[in-house]
């Protein structure tokens, strides 16, 4: 099951089994938050089934920036960088997720360079997307101003 998650695709199946065994399987109700923006990050989640919205709160408004579903990994940034959660993730349906403890996650990255590369790829991917969006937004702003 975890093999289908891109982040873990390179990892030895035996180790994935171990990860699955040592992680907690959690059920969330629709509307429940997996993590809250601003909280400290103590775990990352792998969504097993169900959908969730990634929400950024700004000046009291909640903006949905993405929707994630099965096999997505969320919350890894706060775990990696020891910064507060950058966004709220809210279950939109009943959702099952595997909760990977921060310590375990960091240990995995240290032990499996393939996974570290995969994490980097994921982050770079997101950065590219974000940069593109930022450029787009600036252009839009310029047009609006001009």
């Amino acid at each position, binding site marked *: 099951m975890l093999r289908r998650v891109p982040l873990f695709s390179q990892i030895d199946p*035996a180790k994935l*089994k*171990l990860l699955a*065994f040592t992680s907690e399987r*959690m*059920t969330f109700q629709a509307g*429940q938050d997996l993590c809250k923006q601003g909280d400290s990050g103590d775990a990352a989640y792998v969504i097993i089934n169900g959908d969730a919205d990634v929400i950024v709160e700004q000046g009291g408004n909640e903006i949905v920036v993405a929707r994630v579903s099965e096999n997505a990994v969320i919350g890894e940034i706060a775990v990696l960088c020891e910064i507060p959660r950058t966004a709220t993730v809210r279950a939109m349906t009943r959702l099952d997720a595997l909760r990977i403890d921060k*310590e*375990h996650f960091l*240990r995995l990255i240290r032990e499996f360079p393939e996974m570290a590369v995969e994490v980097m790829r994921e982050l770079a991917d997101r950065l590219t997307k974000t940069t593109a969006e930022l450029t787009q937004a600036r252009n839009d702003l310029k047009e609006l101003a001009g």
Partner: protein
Amino acid sequence: MATEKQKDDYSLPENVFKFAWKHTKKQQIWVLSIVLLSMPTYFMALDLPKRIVNGPISGQGFEFAGAKGTFLNISVSLPDWLGGSEPIELFSGFQLDRLPMLIGLCTVFLGLVIINGLFKFYINTYKGRLGERMLRRLRYELIDRVLRFPIPVFKRIKPAEVSSMVKDEVEPIGGFIGDAFVTPVFLGGQAITAMAFIMMQSFWLGLIAGGIVLVQAILIPRLRRRLIELGRQRQLTARQLSGRVGELVEGISSVHVNDTSNYERAEASSRLGKIFSIRYELFQRKFFVKFLNNFLAQVTPFLFYLLGGYYAITGRLDIGQLIAVIAAYKDLPGPIKDLINWDQQRLDVQVKYSQVTDQFHVEDMLDPLLQSVTFDKVGPLGEKFSVSSLTVTDDSGTRLLDSVSTILPIHEHVAIVGSLNSGGETFADVLARLLPTTAGRAKIDADDLENLPQWRTGRRIGYVPADVSLFYGTVGDNLLYGLKHAPFRPREYQGEDKKRRLWEIAEAHNSGNCDLDINADWIDYESAGVEDYNGLINKTMQVLNVVNLTGDIMNFGLRGTIDPAAKPQLAEKIMTARRELGKRLSEEPYAEMVELFDPEAYTNQATIAENIIFGTGSGNLENGGNKAVYAYLHKVLSEENLDRDLFEMGREIASTVIELFADLPPGHPFFEQLSFMTAEEIPEYQVLLNRLKGVGFEQSKPQDRKDLVRLTFSYIEPRHRLGLMDEALCARLMHARRNFRDNLPDDLSNEIEFYDPDTYNSMASVQDNILLGRIAYGVAGGKDTILSLIRQVLDEHDLHDEIFTVGLDYEVGTGGKRLTSGQRQKLALARALIKQPDYLIVNRALVALDRPSQEQILENVLAYSKNEDGSERGVLWVLANPAMGKRFDRVLVMKEARLVEDGAPSELVRKNGEFAKLVA
């Protein structure tokens, strides 16, 4: 004159005899007179054997048939030096035959033996009591002195040394005091009587005995002089050892983090070696002295037999006399030896006494009047603290505070800021009277702080230090400690108890102890501003709210247990709450978050062992802490034929665990998630599995079976998700549960209390009683939701206060070690707040907390420091974080032991001086 008298009363005499005489004059004289009274019968008992042997046995005076002897003739004659006289007959006695005479004399002898024994018994008991009273007095006096030591003294004394002095070292002193005067008189009297008796029988034999006694008396003390020195050393080294062991226990973490355990071992070994050599030399010498003593004692009879025999043969001494002399001599070495022992003890105890009292004579001891008991209402502290040119230096001469002058009105909220040890801490300590001033003065209105009795400052000033000291006891005990000033409401005693209490008081007086009743109600409700106990609980809640500790106390309460027999109403209320909670939990969204215990259904969220035992017990049932229970569990499993199923299940668990964990390095964080076995056990199970490959349950060894079955005990399907449970197995486990319950052996019936939805379980915690079930695994936020639901139900059922009271009974451990350092600091602050001090001094307390918590508590405390009439109570806070100074009326800025700025915070910021720098 008065001061002279006082001094005399409160200082320890330098000599143990003076100490004993001062306090036990009357008793000593009384017991001495009893001793003297016992002498005549003692002498008679010595004299009688001669008469028995010479009279009826040898036949003197019975030479012809029908002769009669005079029995019980009592006559007194004046000694020669009073002119002498014919014997005056007081009682002419009876005329008896030879045999009745023998019986009569022997009966008298028996009577004398009994009388002597009774005298001895009375004297010994009296002495013993005297000694115990003096021991009690001495210990009390030492403890009293410790309570009056000036605080700086405690920097250089080791707690364990003081306690070893009070406990062990004075013990022989107390025992000796009973003997101090009586023994030399009693034994000396005995010895002299015996000597006199021997002398009267035969002058020469007496001379020999006397000579040898003299040798003993002169030689042996000389030999023992070194023993005294050794004894002194033994005492010192033993005291240091106990000080060192105490230090070691307190500083154990330093030993571990520095890898100095072997240094400590070496240190201990060298100390013990020194003690050994002292003690070895001591007993070598002791036994030599003993040998010499025995030898001299035995030489005398040798001379007696030789010389006495010679005299008897030559007819200068009759046989009766010789036997009496030897009998008397048998009684002589005893007293002499004891007398020498006494002298030895005297020297030893003198040394001990002066060693101990030296340690307890310190300069500037507090006047006892400052600590006197006061039952009166203590009025307000005053208007203001005024401090002028206040200087404090430590023993090394460093200035901790350098000519500080200021006035602090009692109602002001003042902050002291500055870097660590820049003087603020010292200033606070001086105001709390923990440090004496070196120069300058600190006053409240017109009174010098140092001269104020503690009942004024101790009740009206609150002080919170950074290093909190809590006493062993409950949270409640510690919280109310600051209110126990005097036995305000005496306890009423009836019947036997009353007699006992009166006896206690009398005995306390006999030993010069205080007679305040520890069982009285010591709590000063008035200081706390409440009327009674219920008011006090409310007050407690208030102050714990101020310091943000209520939540923790509630948790203690929920984790605590109550005895339903002692508190039936509370148990009943909790049962009502359980039913109410159960009702709500059956509805969405809670239903899937919890699984309640049902005696007729398998609990999926609990372990297999929990499901069979289905109860709580003494010791830790879950981890096999209770061996007897687990042995019975195994027995039930084999009766149910479940052991073979669980054996296979255990095999599966073991192989899964080994597959997953085998190549992880030890200490890997994943092991935390492994509940079946420890990392160290994995190789053992690997070996076990290999051995059992292809081996079924029937062929396996009992121990291997147990090892595998044990693994399944902690299995919870929803948590471990290995897919090992099915309905059939659950049903059989349920059958085992019933078997376990119905056939529980009698000796285990006190160990386990089964879960029953309709009864209160006295062994389970309050929380487990309210929620008789398990919170489900894997439901996000389930635990928090359920816990807050429990709180809600508690509040609705008015249980909050009662569970809070249970929480107050939480034991804090030695020095409060069962609390976190943050909780300890909060508790210390609450302890100071509950007495509603006119002036609260907070000395860098709360540093164990994070900044937001500190700020919040500070706000709370400032808001709380108001009287009912709205007037402010004063606060002086030495801040760890200068920025918080802005919340105060006034800020004192300390720098290098000097007061450099003083004013309202806004003003100081404007001035752009030190405070502005610190805040920036």
